[in-house]
């Protein structure tokens, strides 16, 4: 029965079919690979982070992880707490707290930030991202 259609035409049709099936199979194989490689949800994603108030000492900086990224909490004046992302806004290095100078310095290209996260100098284009802080008893709730 197939002999009615000459082989070259039949092949053309069959190859089109294979093209379709192949695309389908390729997509169906790529999907698991894509899911396998997808990033894991950041630890504690979306949740608040609690830090004991006693950890955040006046004049010192307390580094912690917030939604998978480094963050820092300070007590610039007694009883006043701030929290900032510790990721430099220039190219993503983690800023270091310089206690004597009372400011953050970025070890990568010399960016400088105030204790409130404002740019004091160097290449960073914008301030460190501030995070919300609430004092709850002897706990600081961040986020």
């Amino acid at each position: 029965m197939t002999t009615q259609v000459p082989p070259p035409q039949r092949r053309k049709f069959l190859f089109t079919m294979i093209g379709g099936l192949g695309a389908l199979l390729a997509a169906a194989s790529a999907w698991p690979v894509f899911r396998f490689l997808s990033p894991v949800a950041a630890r504690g994603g979306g949740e608040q982070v609690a830090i004991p108030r006693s950890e955040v000492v006046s004049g010192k900086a307390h580094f912690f992880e917030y939604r998978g990224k480094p963050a820092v909490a300070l007590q610039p004046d007694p009883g006043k707490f701030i929290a900032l992302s510790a990721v430099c806004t220039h190219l993503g290095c983690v800023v270091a707290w310089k206690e004597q100078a009372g400011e953050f310095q970025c070890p990568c290209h010399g960016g400088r930030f105030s204790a409130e996260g404002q740019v004091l100098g160097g290449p960073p284009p914008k301030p460190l991202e501030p995070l919300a802080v609430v004092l709850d008893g002897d706990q600081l709730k961040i986020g």
Partner: protein
Amino acid sequence: MSRSICCLFILMIAAWWTMPAALLAADTVCIECHGGQEGRLGAPVAQWRTSIHAANGISCNDCHGGDPTDYAMAMSPERGFIGVPEYAAVPDFCGRCHVGVAEEYKAGAHGQAIDRGAAQCVVCHGNHAVQRASLDLINEKDCSRCHSYERAALIRMSLTETDTMINKVGHDLDRLYRLGFSVDEMQDRLFNQRNLFHRTFHGVNVDEVRQKNASVQGELGKINMEVAAIDSTLGERKLWGSVMIALFILTGVVFLLVRKAYEEDEQG
């Protein structure tokens, strides 16, 4: 209560670790002497060999104390030899390992009336030839040796369903385990519920049994739900897998058809 479950758990693990000791058990001096004796002094050895204790490497001295490595001192009280416990001392004797069950038993009617000859452990479970416990131990013939069967029957009825459920969940977890799923956590929960269940009815109080039974069933139900969720994922995987298998076969067949078209050209 949860502490005693913990104890029990640790003991079970300890028992598990000493498994290979089942092989060594044959070598204790207890068995060397008593194994050759006749009657009352020798019979326990053969009975013990058939028991769940033997299967788990629990040997004479694990219950009766003494020193299983020293002929002279084997049965010396100095080495903790206990010998045959008094009738009323049996619950404490067994309860050294079966902590939770003993606790519940003593608080219950049987335990309270032990001095008046109420049933204790070995009355129902037997001693040296003890087998894995089953609900069949609660039966008209045995219970009516002392009292009417009515309430025992009620207890048994309410337990049967839970027993079946426990077995089913156990099988399900085993099946998933064999497919590579981590079921440790669920298995621990099942283990806990099974312990709770086993100790519960040793208090022999119908209302209490029913009440605790309901809570055990509730927990089992939760495990069941998790199993069902995994099963439905498995079903989904199988469905998509089947689609892929069909697609590959179809593609293969189309390739063969192309080959056939070429063959016609090659011959022509």
